[in-house]
């Protein structure tokens, strides 16, 4: 008996279909994986189930009866809880208050002792008696915060639990504990919907798999009938070579050499990149990948030597880095990469070495415009005009805008942090093309990515990081998903 059924779900954002014809169904007492590439519509589908988005077509049935879910409250009333990647805990309230506040909040006097007792019971029941219900939620490790989130969902009698990439921020050991918790919930008859990119987890945990692609459901399979390769093929739906066109040029001389880079979170990072080379940095979230880029770029204080084209270079701040020819495209595009409210032109000229400025810093609009126009054409930036606000562009085009200032500055060493995060598949291919063209024109590219296919497809070499160190480097035939995972998790932790 299917507990949850969703049929023909459609959702558009500003005329662009995020979901076209998505179907999904799950039973009580199973862990059901929802898979798909970034942009396939997994999160959108789950947000519709959670009532965070209203759907424009299709039906949701729970226990065979139509469930009108249009607001988050509708979903909660029907026992649906979604645990998002960003937790929604009140960091300054205690664990007990977080778990039970909405439950007891309607009473005027808070029964603190009762809340703490019930929270402790629930936590112990879930296998985490060590969590103190009086501790502040914000003080807990991320893994325990997640447990608190799950307990909060259970306190609302949740019978359909959605976990959106729950292990992205967890260590291997914490992942195991989470899996044990999820299995316990399944055995009690909860319907667990599990979103993850990590194929290993799917095979270790899930009973069935539903694959989404480009906003539509490809199908549902018993996990036992699939293997890594067949699941990957179902998700991508095409060959890798279509995604990652080959580069023409052989790498040249060394452009950037990093030796013994140390920060509180990084230990002895050393590597070099050649002109025309794309170097990948892989590893789990929190392994220190972003920190490496920020340390090289002078955004965080660091010890160690950096050589550019063979000469030692002191980089104290991002200004030094840009003047030395290093450009950064940060991971968080909206917060760090672009000025959403300002025109593309301003974004493009956001550099301490703007070569188009006149004397005394007076702007020379014509020259800037001509230069930006040339870049716009080279990057195939889709925008109404250079005056369009960056925030009106799609994710992929925003990412191109974030790159423009480095190109205006003449940077030949480009540090790209998750360059394709949160952009759809078509835009990804566009960004790959841009990276390839930059490398072909002699730039040295360092690219951090969480997507293994991307690292394998795009990079000449991949450094894999673990706990602030470089665990190893992979290239050629050794550059495989298994190789990356093995280095990222540590040989002993691979399950």
């Amino acid at each position, binding site marked *: 008996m299917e507990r949850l059924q969703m049929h023909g779900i459609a959702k558009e*954002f*500003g005329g*662009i279909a*995020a979901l076209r014809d998505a179907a999904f169904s799950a039973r009580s007492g199973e862990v059901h994986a929802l898979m798909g590439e*970034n*942009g396939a519509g*997994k*999160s959108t589908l789950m*947000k519709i189930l959670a009532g965070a*988005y209203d759907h424009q077509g299709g039906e949701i049935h729970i226990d065979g009866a139509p469930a009108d879910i249009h607001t988050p409250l509708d979903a909660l009333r029907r026992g649906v809880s979604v645990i998002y*990647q*960003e937790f929604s805990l009140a960091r300054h309230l205690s664990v007990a208050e977080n778990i039970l506040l909405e439950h007891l909040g309607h009473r005027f006097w808070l029964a603190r002792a009762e809340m703490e007792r019930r929270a402790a019971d629930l936590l112990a029941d879930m296998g985490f008696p060590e969590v103190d219900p009086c501790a502040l939620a914000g003080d807990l490790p991320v893994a325990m915060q997640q447990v608190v989130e799950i307990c909060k969902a259970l306190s609302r009698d949740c019978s359909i639990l959605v976990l*959106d*990439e729950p292990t992205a921020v967890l260590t291997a050991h914490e992942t195991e504990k989470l899996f044990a918790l999820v299995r316990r919930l399944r055995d009690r008859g909860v319907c667990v919907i599990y*979103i993850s990119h990590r194929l290993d987890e799917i095979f270790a945990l899930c009973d069935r798999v539903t694959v989404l692609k480009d906003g539509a459901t490809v199908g549902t399979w018993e996990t036992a009938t699939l293997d890594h390769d067949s699941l990957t093929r179902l998700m991508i739906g095409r060959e890798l070579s279509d995604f990652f066109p080959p580069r023409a040029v052989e790498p040249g001389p060394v452009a950037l050499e990093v030796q013994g880079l140390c920060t509180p979170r990084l230990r002895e990072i050393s590597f070099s990149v050649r002109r025309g080379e794309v170097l990948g940095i892989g590893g789990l979230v929190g392994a220190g990948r972003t920190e490496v880029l920020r340390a090289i*770029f002078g*955004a965080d204080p660091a010890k160690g030597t950096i050589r550019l084209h063979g000469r030692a270079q002191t980089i104290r*701040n*991002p*200004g*030094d880095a*840009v*003047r030395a020819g290093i450009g*950064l495209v*940060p991971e968080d*595009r*909206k*917060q*760090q*990469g*672009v*000025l*959403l*409210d*300002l025109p593309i032109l301003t974004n493009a000229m*956001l*550099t*301490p070495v703007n070569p188009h*400025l006149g004397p*005394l*810093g*007076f*702007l020379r609009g014509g020259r800037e415009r001509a230069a930006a126009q040339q870049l716009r054409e080279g990057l195939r930036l*889709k*925008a*109404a*005009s250079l*005056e*369009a*606000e960056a*925030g*009106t*562009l*799609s*994710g992929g*085009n925003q990412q191109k805008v974030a790159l423009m200032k480095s190109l205006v500055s003449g940077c030949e060493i480009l540090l790209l942090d998750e360059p394709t*995060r*949160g*952009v*759809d598949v078509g835009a990804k291919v566009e960004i790959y093309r841009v990276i390839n063209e930059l490398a072909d024109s002699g730039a040295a590219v360092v690219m951090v990515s969480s997507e293994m296919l991307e690292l394998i497809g795009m990079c000449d070499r991949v450094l894999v990081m673990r706990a602030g160190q470089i665990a190893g480097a992979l290239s050629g035939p050794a550059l495989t998903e298994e190789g990356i995972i093995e280095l990222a998790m540590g040989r002993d932790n691979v399950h």
Partner: protein
Amino acid sequence: MSTETQTIGTAPAAKGPRAGRGLLARLIDWNIYIMLVALIIASAILSEHFLTVQNIFNLLRQLAPLALVSVGMLLVVLTGGIDLSVGSVAAIGGMVVAMMMPALPVEGGFALILSVLAALGAGAVLGAVNGILVAGFGMASFVATLAMMTMARGIAYMLSNGQPVRFPRELPTAQILTAFGAKGVPGLGIPWPVVAALLAVLLFVILLRRTSWGRLTVATGSNETAVRLAGLPVGRYKFLAYTICGGLSALAGVMVTARTSVGTPVTGIGLELDAIAACVIGGALLSGGKGTVVQTMIGVLILGLIGNIMNLMSVPAYPQQIIKGLIIILAVLLQGVGARTRQRV
């Protein structure tokens, strides 16, 4: 995954913000100009004394200090901050110039320039302290400038034991200053403080629109992290904004002293609120990154007009404050409608 859906949500990239908009939307874009014209027409109808050269010039003369302070405030607001100390700094500026003129061993124009520069310097130093606290120590601008507001006011009282600073009228230096405050351009009659304020406005219109400094000041307020990660010295733009704001505030105090022939420690109480109101009426965002000098000046004029017409109509002081508040709310509501229309298109 969670971000791309939002991106798609704002995706209609083919149209610029102004493409294909109706007449109503355009009118809303121009709402503060329309409001200004409406106020002028209403004032002219309501009072026969309004549209007289003398009244207009007097009004503008009184608004000149607020115009200077509002330009300074706008710079700070553009970086995403706020400066509550402008009124206190103006008081110090007005007192410094009044105390310097008789104290200098020289007299005349040169002495006046020295005195004004001393006032300007004092304001810039106080503004720079604000800038260091905000940009260097990362203090919230509201807190840092709140502290400066009370400290500077204290300094102003201490400079003269709380007494107004009078200066000998016959002193040649003082005569130039009071003539500046009272007279206008020969033949045209435009008051000198208005000419000075217009020059300052023009200067900052050019600096903000035509220089990299202006662009980066706006960018800093729009998204500080992104600007820092672009390799630009964000702290410098913030520091400069507070320093310039302090300097302009002190000059505003000098203008008040010129008009009233006395430097008092109570000058500019509440001035910060008028300046913030002018910026907000002019469409500046207090979160930074949006606002123009010209529109802020329209805000100054709207505020001034409201006060002027109510005075001409003998509206008592207390209801005046209520009406002023209502007009501010109305102006901002109209902008909200504008912003929403923009999003819908």
